[in-house]
């Protein structure tokens, strides 16, 4: 166990293993996304109340779920970086933020577009959308804090502290936004009524959630590889890797 953990901290090992994982995970992700999208768009039955507009759920919910999970991945990486001072955890944390922000953005946008046919307006202060907006700002905060520091190690530590504060806060924020929404707007149509969802709709939704998780992992690994190369640019193994790749390219 400890040796595995130790290996995780080694850039060359991580670079090599992530390459191997991506080789098969990337096609699997794309396949899952394609199958899920086609299933959701064309084969899942229409909702009896919302008609076809509900098909946005197959993008909106997976994006929201994975965006939220991404924050916890980021905070976990941050905690590891604070406790064990592991450089690769810094790399992972740094890479999570833009992915999470992009997914949150997608969730917000799809929520807004969904609002138009459902409520007749582009923006509704629904509990889920509002929480997503807060989450978006949490991600943007981490990214801007990282950029504001000159010293990269200090930046990573500061962001780790911030994301840990965020992890304590997110459940409180979500609960209070839920309470606030139930107070002001007794929901007539909720976006999602998981309990009453037909299994024909649930299956593609679950598939899409899995696909988005895979997408997150792929993107994270790809970002981390770039970040590793940038940081380890002067080391022997990167020199060798680059020169080999360069030679192969030239031939």
């Amino acid at each position: 166990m400890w040796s595995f953990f130790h290996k995780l901290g080694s850039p060359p090992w991580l670079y090599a293993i992530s390459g191997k994982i991506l080789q098969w995970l990337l096609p699997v992700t794309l396949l899952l996304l394609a199958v899920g999208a086609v299933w959701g768009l064309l084969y899942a039955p229409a909702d009896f109340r919302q008609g076809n507009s509900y098909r946005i759920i197959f993008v909106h919910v997976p994006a929201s779920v994975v965006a939220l999970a991404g924050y916890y991945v980021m905070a976990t990486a941050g905690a590891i970086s604070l406790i064990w001072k592991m450089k690769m955890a810094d790399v992972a944390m740094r890479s999570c933020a833009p992915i999470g922000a992009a997914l949150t953005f997608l969730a917000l946008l799809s929520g807004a577009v969904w609002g138009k046919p459902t409520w007749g307006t582009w923006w509704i202060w629904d509990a889920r959308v509002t929480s997503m907006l807060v989450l978006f700002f949490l991600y943007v905060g981490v990214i801007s804090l990282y950029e504001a520091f000159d010293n990269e190690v200090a930046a990573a530590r500061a962001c780790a502290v911030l994301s840990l504060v965020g992890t304590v806060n997110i459940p409180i924020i979500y609960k209070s936004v839920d309470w606030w929404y139930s107070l002001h707007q007794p929901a007539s149509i909720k976006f999602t009524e998981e309990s009453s969802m037909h299994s024909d709709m649930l299956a593609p939704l679950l598939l899409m959630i899995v696909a988005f998780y895979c997408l997150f992992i792929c993107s994270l690994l790809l970002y981390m590889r770039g970040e590793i190369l940038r940081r380890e640019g002067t080391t022997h193994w990167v020199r060798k890797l680059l020169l080999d790749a360069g030679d192969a390219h030239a031939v």
Partner: protein
Amino acid sequence: MSGAPLLPFLSACLRRQLLLAFRRPLEIANPLLFFLLVVMLFPLGIGPDPRQLAEFAPGILWIVALLATLLAAESLFRVDFEDGTLEQLLLTPQPLYLSCLSYVLAHWLLTGLPLTLVAPLFAVMLQLPPPALPALMLSLLLGTAVLSLVGSIGAALTVGLKRGGLLISLLIIPFYVPVLIFGSGAVQFAALGNSAQPQLLVLGGMLSLAIALAPFAIAAGLRISVDAG
């Protein structure tokens, strides 16, 4: 070598902060003046209709209190960082948790508490129904303490940055959301004639959590900032 007894250290730290603040008495009034100014802007912006003002009053009062606390928190550690007292503080054998707590406590005594005390005045100006006043004061009393604690985390993380300014708002305002919801919720409930006890209890819970955890985050933030500066 043993550390000084903790309580005297806490009180010495607090006394020093307050003494420093009272050497610049005008600065204590700044958050209050800010509060008054922004409260004045609302009737100008949304019209003087008393009914409308009364409806918006809980939200307005809470948002302005929130911004006033945030603006004051931004400079909480700035002078100490620049004159080097912060790095000396990190070198003392005292637990940093207590030092941070005393900084925040002083900050709250100088912003949150006065805001709470003058809030009824502004509430009357905004036509808030009188039965809501106790809830307003209690919610501000508890809520501004949470705001000070959480805001100080942002202040600690950004104190060494040259371009801190707006960044702290971006970092901290999302964390202020629950306090705002329950704070203004308490006042709204009371204004409608209901008991605001549940919301006040939630605010109390948030305060306990913040007292327990925030000083650690502040301490970590200060160490990082001194290190990078």
